[in-house]
């Protein structure tokens, strides 16, 4: 602590003596020592890197017919080719990019809606809470996929962004419920009362007093929403309701099943896309557990 203060040239002993309100150094201390967090971050990071760089290695249309039919992985085609002679690696990296896009966008939208509804319901209480909670419960019970099924079927032109919007607008309820419960317990604390007595406007209390105290919780909610969105997108794509243009990991699996890759034993067609999704979602989950242990001292393993 003192060395870092000296490094940046801050010579104020009074400040250093105060209990540090900053969480940074302590968080980093535990984060760097948490194996689960490190594993999760490296898996997701590796996939993200592949999604960013990959498409530059195989430019052009990933659905183009470029090579021989159903060739096993080789130096020319790293992941082999489909029965139509499409490059599986090209489809994989482009699909990976779309997967991250859908996950981040849909997860972000769902987290934003969940936060607005959760904060409002939890902080306001009373009739507002009753109404919002009833609304949340209604949306919660309706299966996300069922709604998207009919919406997506009637939309004749669908892009990645549309898909992300659909997923984001239907998968927020559980997040709203969880955030509401957390806000509820924080609103009863003394420091919120003090803020209220000092005449702070509600929005400032929520964003300055309540939200920072559950920032770790919010971040983990976003991670789970991200992972969930990736899985839902894969499901939609697999049913054939994904983006109408380009490729995606779910669509690759759909095509593989449709064109009997299973019966023909063309395993390099359907193994990579599923493995990619599993790595991303699994990495996110493990990251989440690691973060939980970092933030919550009770869970740290001795």
């Amino acid at each position, binding site marked *: 602590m003192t060395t870092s203060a000296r490094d940046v040239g801050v010579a104020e002993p009074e400040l250093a003596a105060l209990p540090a309100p900053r969480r940074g150094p302590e968080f980093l201390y535990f984060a760097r020592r948490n194996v689960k967090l490190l594993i999760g971050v490296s898996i997701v990071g590796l996939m993200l890197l592949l999604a960013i760089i990959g498409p530059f290695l195989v430019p052009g249309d990933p659905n183009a017919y470029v090579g021989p039919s159903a060739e096993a992985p080789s130096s020319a085609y790293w992941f082999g080719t489909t029965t139509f002679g499409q490059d599986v690696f090209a489809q994989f990296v482009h699909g990976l990019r779309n997967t991250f896009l859908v996950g981040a966008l849909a997860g972000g939208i769902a987290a934003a809606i969940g936060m607005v509804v959760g904060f409002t319901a939890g902080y306001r209480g009373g009739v507002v809470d009753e109404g919002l909670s*009833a609304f949340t*419960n*209604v*949306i*919660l*019970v*309706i*299966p*996300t*996929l*069922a*709604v998207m*099924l*009919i*919406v997506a*079927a*009637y*939309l*004749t032109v669908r892009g990645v962004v549309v898909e992300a919007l659909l997923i984001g607008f239907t998968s927020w309820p*559980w997040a709203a419920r969880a955030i509401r419960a957390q806000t509820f317990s924080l609103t009863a604390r003394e420091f919120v009362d003090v803020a209220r007595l000092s005449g702070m406007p509600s929005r400032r209390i929520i964003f300055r007093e309540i939200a920072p105290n559950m920032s770790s919780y919010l971040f983990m909610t976003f991670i789970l929403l991200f*992972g969930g969105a990736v*899985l*839902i997108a*894969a*499901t939609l794509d*697999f*049913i*054939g*309701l994904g983006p109408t243009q380009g490729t995606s990991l*779910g669509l690759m*699996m759909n095509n*593989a*099943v449709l064109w009997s890759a*299973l*019966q023909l*034993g063309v*395993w390099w067609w*359907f*193994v990579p*896309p*599923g*493995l990619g*999704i*599993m790595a991303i*979602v*699994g990495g*996110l*989950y*493990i990251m989440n*557990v690691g973060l939980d242990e970092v933030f919550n001292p*009770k*869970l740290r393993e001795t």
Partner: protein
Amino acid sequence: MRRYFLRKLLIYLATFVVAVTIDWAIPRFMPGDPVQTLISRVPAGDPESARAITEYYNSVFGLDVPIWQQYLNFWSSLLHGDLGISVYAFPQSVTSVIWHAIPYTLGLLIPAILISWWAGNKFGALAARRKSLDNTVLPVGYVLSATPYMWLGILLAWGLASELQWFPISGGYSLSVEPNLSLSFVWDLLNHWFLPFLSLFLVAFGGWAIGMRNMIIYELESDYAHYLEALGAPQRLVRRYAFRNAVLPQVTGLALQLGVIVAGCLVTEIVFSYPGLGHLILEAIRNQDYFLLQGSFLFIIVGVLVANFLVDIAYLVLDPRTRAGMQGGRA
């Protein structure tokens, strides 16, 4: 007690109304005209006949009356069990097509949900805070719960059915057997059922096991557990108390996970060409059979609502506090 159920029923009723309204509104207010889409698939020569076809479709879909009338008509035909005629399985009605697919879907879903929930909870509780078990259960559980349902299905179909030929790769029963109540047919049915069931079971199992493991760790760190330990209570007793507390959030989780598992079941059926609702939905999308799609949507909603209600009852039976609280409220 009555208040609790009344409240729950009200929520479910509201959900049903919202769902039906969505089902009614989406085809009407989406950008793009489904009638035009239908017509464009069948090229009409001159504008005169195109107009006649448009009028015909409008009257068939009931689009030629005021919008509020359309909404009321939709409800009235719905309550009569009339969901329209399927295009894909013409001239059968949507209700009868779905009715024939439902047993297969439920036959997969119900055992998969119940057995995975039970086994996952037992396993997770066993693994919590036990180093050797935890080190295997945790990674395996995470890998399983992060696996997309269809991918595990694809892998099982490829490995166990296509390569090893232990199980049939597709269908609900062999084409060579006559559907009847004989032993050989039931055996054939079970043979086809096993792989889709297994892939559903495994993915769900991973999620439950991890959930339970984490809950037990939370519970073992709580004050009552430490107090019991300090009193010298045997580990088994402490764990039993922890389990009873940890199982409640898992019951709530069951209600929350229903939608995900149903979605998983639909895609698993597609992988195995299993003749359930998922397979039907795929065909409906391919054939642009909107009535069938909307009907399937309603069936899924009703199924999930009923299941939610059953979970509510289960929660009531398992948690003495809810009952006590309700009695206190009444007194």
